[in-house]
């Protein structure tokens, strides 16, 4: 999740889209009798319907922001209700512009028996995240250069982004498997059962990630508001100064985020025990330099 709000929004990370596209759905079977060449045929279509009346995006982000600003301390020059309103408005505007996402959600509902609507949906979400990963990295780097927070602080957010990407890959794998099993089911009952199994398996993972996204948003918004003079600046503070935050509150939020991130990663290992395994290229110049530097005695590291 990148600093600041410009260019990205909670939409990119929000479990709400995933929940809406993968969890709050139920399979339905529509049987139609059609007449062709004087003969009657049965046409069976399977599709998905929303499980419950969809909560409006506006309600959802407003609720999220209300929870955030009732959790974090805010400076006296801001009003909590107005912050909720301004941040929510920003997210809603971004969502309204996001025709791609809306279309992807619609396609889940429209899809017919032969398609793999759930897989297409998660692949869309994953593909989009993948295509933006370099931008996210760039924003973190840029933000580091216009702040006095240490680099390891920003590194945590890159770890979070990588974790989120791995999370989407796990979801893709699970959805692919269960949707395949469902599509080869002998009857609609079996089909429903497979989709229910899928939801039971991925549901706890989406819940876990939601907690992590929330703690990340609390930390980021806390830093943003304490480094902004007015409501305009909250979308792109000029400089993030560590001296502007209250250290005990900052530590509380940072520790909470670190714990949630660790818990989420540990939870993800149940789904894919190898997801943390990365191949580091030891011949790459940055790795070589870092490897030599890390082994030097720490007091020497002064420049």
């Amino acid at each position, binding site marked *: 999740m990148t600093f600041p709000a410009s260019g990205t929004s909670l939409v990119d990370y929000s479990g709400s889209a995933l929940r809406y596209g993968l969890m709050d759905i139920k399979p339905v079977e529509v049987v139609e009798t059609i007449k062709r060449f004087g003969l009657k045929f049965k046409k069976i279509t399977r599709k998905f319907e929303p499980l419950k009346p969809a909560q409006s995006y506006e309600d959802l982000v407003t609720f999220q922001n209300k929870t955030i600003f009732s959790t974090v301390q805010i400076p006296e020059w801001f009003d909590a209700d107005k912050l909720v309103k301004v941040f929510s408005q920003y997210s809603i505007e971004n969502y309204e512009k996001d025709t791609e996402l809306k279309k992807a959600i619609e396609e889940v509902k429209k899809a017919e028996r032969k398609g793999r609507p759930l897989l297409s949906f998660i692949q869309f979400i994953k593909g989009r995240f993948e295509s933006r990963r370099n931008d996210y*990295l*760039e924003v*973190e*780097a*840029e933000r*580091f*250069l216009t702040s006095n927070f*240490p*680099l*390891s602080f*920003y*590194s*945590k957010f*890159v*770890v979070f*982004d*990588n974790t989120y990407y791995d999370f989407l890959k796990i979801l893709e794998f699970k959805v692919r498997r269960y949707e395949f099993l469902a599509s080869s089911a002998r009857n609609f009952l079996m089909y429903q059962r497979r989709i229910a199994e899928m939801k039971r398996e991925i549901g706890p993972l989406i819940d876990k990630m939601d907690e992590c996204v929330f703690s990340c948003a609390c930390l980021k918004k806390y830093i943003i508001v304490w480094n902004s003079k007015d409501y305009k600046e909250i979308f792109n503070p000029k400089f993030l100064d560590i001296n502007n935050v209250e250290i005990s509150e900052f530590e509380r939020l940072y520790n909470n985020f670190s714990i949630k991130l*660790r818990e989420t*990663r*540990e939870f993800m*290992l149940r789904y894919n*025990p190898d997801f*943390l*395994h*990365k191949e*580091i290229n*030891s011949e790459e*110049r*940055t*790795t070589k*330099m*870092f*490897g*030599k*530097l*890390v*082994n*030097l005695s*720490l007091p*020497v*590291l*002064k*420049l």
Partner: protein
Amino acid sequence: MNVGITLSNPSPIGCFFLDTCVILSDILKENTPRIEKLKKDVNLHNIPCYISDSVKQEIYEKIKQTSDFLGKVIRETIKFHLEDFRKRNKIPLTDPMTSNDIKALEDLFSYYYNALKITKVGLQNPISLIEEWTISFLGEQLDKGVKINIKQFLRELIKKLLELTSYIEDLYDELITFQRKFVKVKNITLDSRIVLVVKSIGIHKKDCDHIASAVTYQIREREKVVFVTLDFSSILEKRHLIQKQLDLECCDPLYALHHLV
């Protein structure tokens, strides 16, 4: 009747305690032949491999401090010097970087080399490592004809660091936080009497805790422990003294197996 000479070792008995440098080498793929040999032996003979809490903490601190140090150098020292050079020469900050900027960095690094010579504080090594890294990267960009301004140059360096440190954190978590590989973390309450003996040998604070943990475990569990390290200058150099005074064998990963048979 088989009268042939057997070259196989008897089964190893005991365990390994690994030093910070061994774990860092594994994560960063350094000293690969030595580390691979150790891992192969561990795997083949089912040898338990532990790290103490003190080692776990030191690894994390080293990664964090190195990352923060590099970030600081780029954000403060290099950025300031490059911008100052442009201002003095009335060149807009947004102009693409040229060989003149590289020469400005040359001045910066020379200044630090000279300062270190005079004050005799610190080592030249960190400076030369950062110098090689930044200048090679910039030189490569200029050779390719890439137009890059100061802001983009600094951002690219930071991106490389962020990418690397996030991967390192993944590997750290896999190996240490979640203990999914060949190492288990041992929480050991240090015996102050042992710490004093290790100190008296002339081992510095951090290494002292690592060695004291291994000795404490060896005494408490009555299990042979071999302390595996790549620290030639302060630990392996004193290995005979450590063995004599603490009954703990210290060795290079290459030889670790043979200290357990």
